[in-house]
């Protein structure tokens, strides 16, 4: 039996704001297998991004358990989670979230530097070449197009060779052609490095490229976790 890389059990998330308590996720249970590509889909506010962030240890569940690579993320401190992400996870956002005062090269080298890698810049340079940005290494995010920024973000997410790659609407801010190119890169590179890819998307064609699609509505799973779309 294959051991899942991510395993959620009765996961719930509620947040308290000025307006009171908001329930975001209800009793989510699912497993994600090694090397699998999984799409989380659903209408806005259905909780798909929140679920993705729970899987990345970027958010804490109100109840339930979440395991990643055999580690109980709910039991880890903020700093333990940061170190865990540094070693095992890469994240790509819709809004890229590059650090504005760092060049493309420095942005990609940052997670390696945090991990204490002495070859950080050499490896970052190589990663940028892989995503086709060898001529843009010294440029700041503001000097790059949206597609280029997302390629830098992809390189930054993959440079540490993560076991799990999380992508939150990676093509949401890009035009069709650029988005398609990024998706190709995303799938190819995660496959090449053997990473498990979990992505949130509204795009049907993108979800169809995944091994499995999970639908969420009002914070609950609509599709059983065992169902396979493709």
């Amino acid at each position, binding site marked *: 039996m294959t051991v899942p890389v991510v395993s959620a059990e009765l996961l719930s998330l509620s*947040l*308290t*704001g*000025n307006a009171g308590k*908001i329930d975001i996720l209800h009793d989510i249970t699912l497993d994600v297998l090694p090397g699998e590509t999984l799409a989380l889909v659903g209408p806005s506010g259905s909780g798909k*991004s*929140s679920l993705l*962030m729970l899987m*990345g240890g*970027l*958010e804490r569940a109100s109840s339930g358990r979440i395991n990643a690579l055999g580690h109980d993320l709910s039991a880890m401190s*903020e*700093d333990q989670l*940061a*170190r865990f*992400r*540094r*070693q095992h996870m890469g*994240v790509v*956002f819709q*809004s890229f*979230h*590059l*650090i*504005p*005062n*760092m060049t493309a090269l*420095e942005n990609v080298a*940052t*997670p390696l*530097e*945090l*991990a*204490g890698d002495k070859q950080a810049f050499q490896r970052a340079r190589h990663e940028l070449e892989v995503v086709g940005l060898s001529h843009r290494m010294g440029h700041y995010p503001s000097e790059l197009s949206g597609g280029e920024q997302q390629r830098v973000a992809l390189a*930054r997410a993959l440079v540490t060779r993560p076991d799990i790659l999380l992508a*939150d609407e990676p093509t949401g801010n890009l035009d069709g052609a650029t988005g398609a190119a990024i998706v190709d890169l995303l799938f190819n590179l995660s496959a090449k490095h053997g990473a498990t890819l979990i992505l949130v998307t509204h795009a049907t064609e993108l979800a169809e490229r995944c091994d499995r699609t999970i639908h969420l509505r009002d914070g609950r799973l609509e599709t059983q976790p065992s169902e396979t779309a493709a």
Partner: protein
Amino acid sequence: MSWKISAKFARRELRGGITGFRILLACLTLGVAAITAVSTIKIAIETGLTEQGATLLGGQAEAEFTYRFATAEERDWLVGNALAISEVTDFRSMAHVQGPDGPEQALTQVKSVDDAYPLTGSVTLSNDVALKVALGDQDGTPGAVMQRVLAERLGLDVGDRFRLGQQDFVLSALLKAEPDRASDGYGMGPRTLVHTNALKAAGLLSPGTVFSTKYRLLLAPDKDLEQLKTAAEDRFSNSGMRWRDARNGAPGIARFIDRLGVFLVLVGLAGLAVGGVGVSAAVKTYLDSKISVIATLRTLGATRAIIFQTYFLQIGALSGVGIALGLLLGSAIPLALAPWINAQLPIPASFTIYAKPLFEAAVYGFLTALIFTLWPLARVEDIRAATLFRDQICRHKTLPALRYLMAIGGLLTALLASAVWFNDTIKLTLWMAAGIIGALFALAVAAFVMQRTARLASRAVRQPVWRWALAALSNPSNGSASVVMSLGLGLSVLAAVGQIDGNLRGAIARDLPKVAPSYFFVDIQKDQISDFVARVSINPQVTRMDTAPMLRGIITQINGVDANEVAGDHWVIRGDRGLTFAATLPERTTLTAGTWWEADYSGPPLLSFAAEEAAEIGLELGDKVTLNILGRNITAEIKNFREVDFSNAGIGFVMTLNPAAISGAPHSFISTLYAAETAEAGILRDLASRFPNITAIRVRDAIAEVSKLLGAIASATSYGAATTILTGFLVLIGAAAAGERARSYEAAVLKTIGATRRQILLSFALRSALLGAAAGIVALAVGILGGWAVNHFVMEAKFAVVWPSALAIIFGGLLANLLAGLGFALKSLASRPAQTLRSRD
């Protein structure tokens, strides 16, 4: 390892420029510069006093006697210990002239000197004549020199004659500078300089008249000043002699500069606290703009320590730059202003770059920067990676983690300890700190109440412009609390300084003239007093006259213990005091404890002491006070305490003895006359021509002199507070600039839904005015309380609220906030909605 990475990240972040840090830099630079400048000027003056101590004193050491010359024994000892000696007498007198419209007279502070004067430095006269020649015989009449202001008052030109007592003098030159002017203390009139020999016939130095003699000594280079002082005090401990030496040539000025300097440094610290609130707001705004960067770094695996260190190093480096700029500016300003400052001072100041003010200001700057940046910096720990995909709907924690609170507490204690150590005044520093902390607390409460009230009011109000303004104020995340705190603290300091300033300037002018006498007449001789009283009694214009015998004496011991050990530095112990004697309880006198002596009492000396001063010193009925009067010690038992009101400028003696104790000693009389202002000149002419040796002090002139001095102190305080105004305004601009983006967005949305520019502008103006008013009301209360505390505890003066100043500062603050707010609001209104909304997407 983590520090190395943090330093690398911090360096990269700083490449983005210092746009968000301009206010931080300006606040720190200004605060540190103000403290450096004040402290540098203080040290420059103190150094000048030390370096020029011998010149200011008129010799390396000085022995002073009151009412008398040194005895042969004392003089022999002084001569035996010095290379050279000079004798100087100092007293008040009237200079008389025969003017075109009859006799004229003016009060003057006379100094008579011998041939050896001055031992150090030189006297500068108007026509470059040597002093010896100027004071020598001028065709059979002794010469004299006087300050230009006195000559002009009397209408005298060089070569004209005037009279002191019974002696005529020729004005041979005008006195431009005398080296020992600063050590002579506060004089009642402009200076006249004569030769002592010429006074023999004047009748001004007869026993019982008020004068002091000073013996200035030039010493061998190897003479130990401390040893000599000890030897002199041991040998003449009961003679009433006062010893001074070049280590502290002008103690009055040194003490004044020290106190004023300390006060101004503390005002500077308050200004730094105002800047600190601005620093805190600037750091918060900057860190808010960095939330996505911090969250991204968290996503990439940065620990909380790395994040904290990254921003700590950045802000620390910029604070260092601000402090360095402040030190540079604060050192440069006194150097640039040195010629002007020296021209204003009666003593030479030695301007250069001193290490102590730099160190002091740097310590204050670093500690203040740490205290005010640590609070917002502690928040970066709470920024989580999830912020990247969700606006922070979770409530912020109100307080930082305990370890940060403890660190802030420790730093605050260190700041207070530094201020106490540098300024050597625990009480004043702690009061000031309590004032600032109390003001911040009151302002925080006011901000909270304002937000709650605005929330409730916004629901009740129907008028949209008001509702938008109130809703904006009630939102805890729009920074209104920090505006109330920074503006309120700045206004509180200004209001307090305004109250102190107004009370200083107004106290005498406001309180005295209603009850003060017109003239004090001193040096009325025993054989003149009955004539004097008779002459005054027949003058219908005199509404009241008080007379009393007067001697001067020094309290040397209390209950057999050195008076300084018992009473410390109390003003009654400092120098000689006027004292009188009376057989019966004087009119309008109230005893607070004990009883008066029998009118014919002739037993051991008894003493009546001023109640308030006795309580301050800790005296009780039955205590024994030893007085040195004309070189003779008299020990008297305190028989009673009585109320003495010094504030009405009437005759008020701290000490009154029974007549048998001292009436045999040479003494003169003092008299006060009360009359209408229009009658004053005539009364003076009449009495001065009949009693030429008597000195008349016009109370209005004395009040004007003291008011001038207090005005100068008030001005210095106002200059000190000016930096606080500037810092406060910078903080306002910073707050307005920080909110500009949010206001632009709000304006764009409001325009989109149909609001006019006028409505939006009115709403923005309303919120600025309401914020200003909230800060102003608290500042009014804090300022008045602070002003009262300084007046009551430091100045020991009566306090009255100076409403024009209080209201002007509050309305000024409100207006400043309105202007700063509207300045940025207009910018927000100018942009097109589509442009603003698109850039926000």
